[in-house]
């Protein structure tokens, strides 16, 4: 054994030294760049002459291609337009008692009495709030987008499962479909499909298809070999083997995909409304946002949240197969009878009642003005407090991160200037800290602290870009390998060459800070929720609301309290991105193996020790997944944060939308997608490495 250890140690040593050496080299390059930045300003500001007309190139290509393919797409658009109008007309025509009866029956079948009551209450709310026709329009968009996404997704998933060669390309495509903000491809879609609700439908379908593909592939891959063999041995033909053996086995997973596809389609209704052509609930949310009417935006946002929860529970209920005993009494045939009855009721009501007799006038939404009055009252009474919070965070956190400590330490901002003595003390403190960390936990921690120190000193916007690209490439190489390193370096360089260096830095700065804060705050809340059922019960509906309400709704109070600017953008991003850390940390901690925790406790560990040394390390894979989701959520909010006046990539997407500049929108959207995919791959590689080590 000693021999083996002796043989391993030198190899291990030399590897560590190589990594350490590379990092020290990169840090030296960064220091050199910082030292030279006054003499060679191009080290900090990416030179304008170097940028390539990438967006213009895309536009030139699309100008040439679009006229050729336009007729095909327009025909397709006309083909979809018809069923869309028909479904909407039917749903709006149906009197609400009939819809309510049908939904109640479906909900009862899916989840029993409680869900049926919830369904009726949710629909009643839409009616009372005065959003009935709009809700039905939205429903018709979902009803048409979901089958399209499901069918296409299932087909692609089967192909991906059968042909291993297709799979990498397919996965890359799915990543893009889920991470490029929809605003970025609205202009190309408008060019191809023409104006109208069909564009919204296509955008929804693009975003909603990937979960179906992924889950179909996953489900089919997970069919146990034994079941497959049993099918073959009983003499199945290829087709029988697929439809009678593999699909039924994979069905639960495929249904999870269906459920996620439905939710994704619903989350796109606001984007669909930006184009217009359809008076739906997303349009109402946008209009109230435009008017800064918080009351109306809550009322209309709640409709979307309720629809999401209702559809989620119903599809999940059917996916599980309706296990409740009362629900089982409602057999398929009886359900059909109830549905037929509701249609009959509908026709009867229509025949005997005048048009629109059953709908309330403008409903609650006409009375929602007091919410704004209340909000403004809060602003009036506590404005000083909000100003104080904002300025405090701006001075102590946002500004130094953006322009660096050296930039913030001026008489105008911090009241003192940056002297060489301070610089020396700063360097010494970080070096000492890094050495201590390196000695105690390993050199990686020391290097991490030094890199953090560099970023804090120079700020995200003032950081020399060659050093940044070097750091990113090195990190990707060390965590994953040459492939990812190449991807990272090429991606960052391309974004800069496209002339988006500053928006890129702003995006990294805003998202990076939001993710760190979300993981800290959300993680703490998650730990608390894992140890207290009361906290868990309070947090759950809040998380549900933050995830299903359109994020536009929260922008209005954030704007009134904190004004246009980076702090408000940070709040907006965090409100959405804080949910994954809460959920995943709680879930991870609650499902740690009980026997291990017990053993640790019996060894006399304090609760804090148990948490830090046993529970958290055990829950780490789940927590990492949560962090991954946090990064995705933060990046997906960039496009929405642009509405409160930021200068990041999301704003570029908006500006491109206004200019109808398809190329610029795509470039900015792809840049956001690149960041998301890179972060995802890094996290995955990191988890895999840890698993190998363990």
């Amino acid at each position: 054994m000693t021999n083996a250890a002796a043989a391993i140690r030198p190899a291990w040593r030399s590897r560590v030294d190589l990594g350490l050496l590379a990092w020290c080299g990169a840090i030296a390059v960064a220091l050199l760049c910082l030292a030279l930045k006054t003499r060679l300003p191009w080290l900090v500001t990416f030179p304008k002459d170097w940028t390539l007309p990438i967006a213009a190139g895309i536009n030139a290509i699309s100008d040439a291609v679009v006229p050729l393919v336009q007729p095909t797409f327009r025909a397709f658009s006309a083909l979809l337009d018809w069923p869309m109008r028909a479904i909407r007309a039917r749903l709006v025509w149906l009197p609400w008692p009939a819809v309510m009866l049908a939904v109640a029956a479906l909900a009862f079948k899916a989840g029993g009495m409680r869900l049926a009551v919830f369904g009726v209450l949710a629909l009643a709310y839409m009616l009372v709030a005065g959003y009935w026709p709009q809700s039905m329009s939205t429903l018709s968009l979902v009803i048409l987008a979901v089958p399209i996404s499901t069918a296409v997704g299932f087909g692609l998933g089967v192909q991906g499962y059968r042909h291993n060669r297709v799979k990498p390309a397919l996965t890359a495509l799915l990543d893009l479909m889920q991470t490029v903000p929809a605003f970025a491809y609205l202009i190309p879609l408008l060019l191809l499909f023409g104006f109208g609700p069909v564009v919204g439908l296509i955008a929804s379908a693009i975003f909603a298809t990937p979960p179906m593909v992924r889950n179909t592939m996953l489900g089919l891959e997970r069919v146990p070999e034994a079941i497959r063999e049993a099918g073959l041995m009983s003499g199945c033909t290829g087709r029988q083997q697929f439809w009678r053996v593999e699909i039924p086995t994979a069905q639960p997973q495929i249904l999870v995909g269906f459920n996620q596809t439905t939710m994704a389609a619903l989350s796109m209704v606001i984007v669909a409304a930006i184009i217009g052509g359809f008076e739906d609930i997303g349009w109402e949310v946008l209009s109230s946002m435009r008017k800064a009417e918080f009351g109306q935006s809550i009322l209309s946002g709640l409709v979307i949240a309720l629809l999401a929860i209702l559809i989620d529970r119903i599809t999940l209920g059917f996916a599980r197969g309706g296990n409740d005993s009362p629900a089982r009494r409602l057999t398929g045939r009886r359900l059909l009878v109830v549905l037929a009855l509701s249609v009959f009721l509908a026709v009867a009501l229509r025949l005997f009642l005048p048009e629109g007799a059953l709908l309330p006038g403008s409903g609650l939404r006409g009375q929602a003005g007091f919410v704004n009055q209340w909000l403004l009252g809060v602003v009036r009474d506590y404005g000083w407090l909000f100003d104080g919070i904002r300025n405090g965070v701006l001075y102590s956190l946002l500004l130094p991160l953006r322009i660096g400590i050296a930039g913030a330490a001026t008489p105008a901002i911090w009241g003192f200037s940056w002297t060489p003595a301070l610089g020396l003390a700063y360097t010494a403190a970080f070096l000492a800290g890094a050495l201590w960390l390196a000695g105690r936990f390993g050199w990686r921690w020391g290097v991490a602290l030094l890199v953090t120190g560099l970023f804090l000193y120079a700020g995200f916007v003032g950081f020399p870009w060659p050093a940044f690209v070097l750091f990113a490439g090195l990190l990707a190489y060390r965590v994953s390998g040459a492939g990812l390193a190449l991807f990272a370096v090429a991606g960052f360089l391309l974004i800069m060459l496209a002339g988006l260096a500053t928006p890129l830095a702003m995006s990294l700065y805003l998202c990076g800070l939001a993710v760190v804060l979300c993981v800290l705050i959300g993680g703490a809340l998650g730990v608390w929720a894992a140890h207290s059922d009361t906290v868990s019960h309070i947090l759950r509906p809040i998380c549900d609301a933050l995830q299903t309400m359109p994020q536009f709704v929260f922008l209005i109070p954030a704007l009134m309290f904190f004004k246009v600017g980076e702090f408000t953008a940070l709040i907006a991003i965090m409100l959405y991105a804080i949910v994954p850390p809460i959920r995943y940390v709680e879930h991870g901690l609650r499902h740690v193996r009980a026997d291990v925790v017990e053993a640790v406790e019996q060894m006399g560990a304090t609760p804090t020790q148990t948490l830090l040394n046993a529970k958290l390390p055990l829950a780490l894979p789940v927590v990492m997944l949560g962090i991954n989701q946090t990064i995705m959520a933060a990046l997906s909010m960039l496009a929405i944060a642009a509405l409160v006046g930021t200068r990041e990539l999301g704003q570029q997407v908006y500006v491109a939308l206004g200019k109808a500049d398809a190329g610029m929108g795509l470039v900015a959207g792809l840049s956001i997608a690149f960041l998301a995919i890179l972060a995802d791959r890094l996290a995955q590689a990191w988890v895999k490495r840890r698993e190998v080590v363990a």
Partner: protein
Amino acid sequence: MLKSTMLQSAGLALAILAGVLPAGAADLGAKDEPIRLAMLEWTGAHISTHIAGQLLQKLGYKVEYVTAGNFPQFSGLADGTLSASVEIWLNNVGDIFPKVLAEKKIEDIGKLGLETKEGWIYPKFMEQVCPGLPDWTALEKPECVQALSTPETAPNGRFLDYPADWGSRAATIIADNNMPYTAVPSGSEGALVAELEASEAAKTPLLMMFWGPHYALAENDVGWVKMPPCKDESNEHCIRPPDVDKIVWSGFGQKWPAAYEFLKQLQVNATDQQKMMLAVDKKGQDLDTVVKAWVEANEAVWKPWIDAAKE
């Protein structure tokens, strides 16, 4: 403008005299096919559109209101998916509008006649903070700059600009006059309104770009800055009241001749529009009912337009 209308009507008269126009020029045309009017995002446009729609119905047309984003609408108007849009603010049309106009896919059929305003506004209490307002020189005094300064713009004062995608003329004008201000893009109309309302409520200083008629102006007491002299007369360096025009799809005149003539005549008055805006937005009344009441009370206003179309 007056001249061009006169010329136009003179031309029209000549054309009729000479019999150049076919006899059915003021025909209803394809009256069974609905005219699709774009309903844009703001209430003012809803009102103008519904006035046009209700009067077109009186003429004997079918009308469909289609919600449309301010920029996406132009792709709809260019290919005829949308038939007309009656309240286009030419200061906010992006780059797509001039493009499709030049390609002759859409047609500009003249002004809506809405009395507009655009410029720099401030809540009225600012006159105590910056004595000398509304004159722009008051903004240059140190105490005024100090009051408007924020951590993000220090030592400059903060100027809340239009969203980045609407273009940034304010920044140019600030630079033209060497004013100690930094223009901060606001991101959306909602952000502008929210800031104005919050500023009024908490009495925090604010200086921003805005336009009228806008219902936010009916609720909040604001002053308009008397602007510094323009460096030159170009749109980039000078703010003038924006034009609001009526735009139709290029095939509109052929398909619905009478409606075309009518829309050319249509005018909307800013005071009326602002009153209706308040009724809809703040009193929670139904849009269609509010406009119907206006139509019933103002026959004298719109009768000549319908007569002109029927001629």
